[in-house]
């Protein structure tokens, strides 16, 4: 993916309830998620290559791990945070939903 859509430049929250066998579904903050004491994991793509990965933290907010993203081939975006690196294969997206191949 040579360029990524500006729609993607936001924090995405995992919407487990909508996952399918082959897609992980993410939604923006204002999606009407069921309330939870546990923070939803997710990630954020920022213009210019900054990437932040969010995981459950000890005081109920998410712990943020900063990293970088870069375009991959085809529908892929390579993301790195800490020592981890992975490819996100973006199946579909708009400003309300992001679907990533599992």
């Amino acid at each position: 993916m040579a360029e990524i859509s500006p729609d993607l430049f936001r924090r995405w929250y995992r919407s487990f309830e909508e996952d399918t066998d082959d897609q992980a579904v993410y939604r923006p903050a204002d999606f009407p998620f069921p309330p939870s004491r546990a923070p939803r994991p997710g990630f954020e793509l920022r213009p210019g290559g900054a990437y932040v990965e969010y995981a459950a933290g000890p005081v109920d907010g998410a712990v943020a791990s900063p990293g970088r993203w870069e375009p991959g081939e085809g529908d892929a975006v390579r993301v790195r945070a800490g020592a981890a690196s992975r490819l996100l294969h973006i199946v579909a997206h708009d400003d309300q939903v992001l679907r990533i191949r599992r």
Partner: protein
Amino acid sequence: MDTADIVETPVRRRCGSEDVHRRLLNESLNYRLNRAAIENLAFAFATGQEQPSRAEVVTVPVVVHVVFGADEQNVSDEQIDSQIAVLNEDFRATNADVANVPPVWQGLVADARLEFRRASVDPQGNPTDGVTRRRTDVLSFSDDEAVKFTARGGADAWPADRYLNVWVCRLGGGLLGYAQFPGGPPATDGVVITHTGFGTTGTAAAPFNLGRTTTHEIGHWLNLFHIGGDDGTGCSGTDFVSDTPNQAGQNFGTPSFPSVTCNNGPDGDMFVNYMDYTDDAAMFMFTHGQILRVEACLAGPRQGLITAAGSPPPDSAPANSAPANSAPANSAPANRAPADAAPVGGE
């Protein structure tokens, strides 16, 4: 962890960015040093090297910052007071549902001897009702701390060594609330609660409409960890409390007793503990071991609250002068004169 731990490496040298980078690194280092000292003190209390010496119930001055983007998020004074009433039961173990604690753990139920009251003196020394209200353009806040800063659409903290700051707003991502452990930056110290999980009336919505989100978050603010040990669903994590059973992950909903994990039978997980993740109607207790950590916190990083609460009120109501164990909970009249925050000259 706090945002001070999030340090993005500057991609190129820019005016000012090195300074920001260094500041964040320094704050992070300070936080790590603070946390080590706090945990060392908690360990000393847990092992009996230090003993709780607090004789009296401490009343914590609370400021509630209501940050609303829509009128319904502008929670009423009644909703705020319903939350404070819950805290005054839960932190005195006078909550009616404590009777639902399984018999095997009834002996572990602990009175934190903490009470809460809306602050009546603001940081400048003026009378206050302990509530600040601000309309915002922010549709929903996240755990990025923006709600704690006026410049970011929220409301600045009051001095954290004298007040418990509670921010009430609309949190996005379905999050009910989040906290900050003691030892973090004062400007972000306190708890944040989504308005639908705050109090017991108004916009509070089931199954989180019994005020327990705030109890849980204040538990963190007083240095309590999740009883599941914050290692996902593993069995090696710990909450550094000896009388909570070792359990795998956090529990959700309203589990049935017993719920066995990590070979912790026959009694299983203590999902009735405020520091689990169960619904409001399913959590009822702190343990003695947890309250030892709270005592260490009050003897260490939060000792300013004891000072703030300890100055005698003008009418010297005797409620806090009786021995702690004989003072009935909530015995003070609601209009009791302030015993909280003395004027301070700003941070």
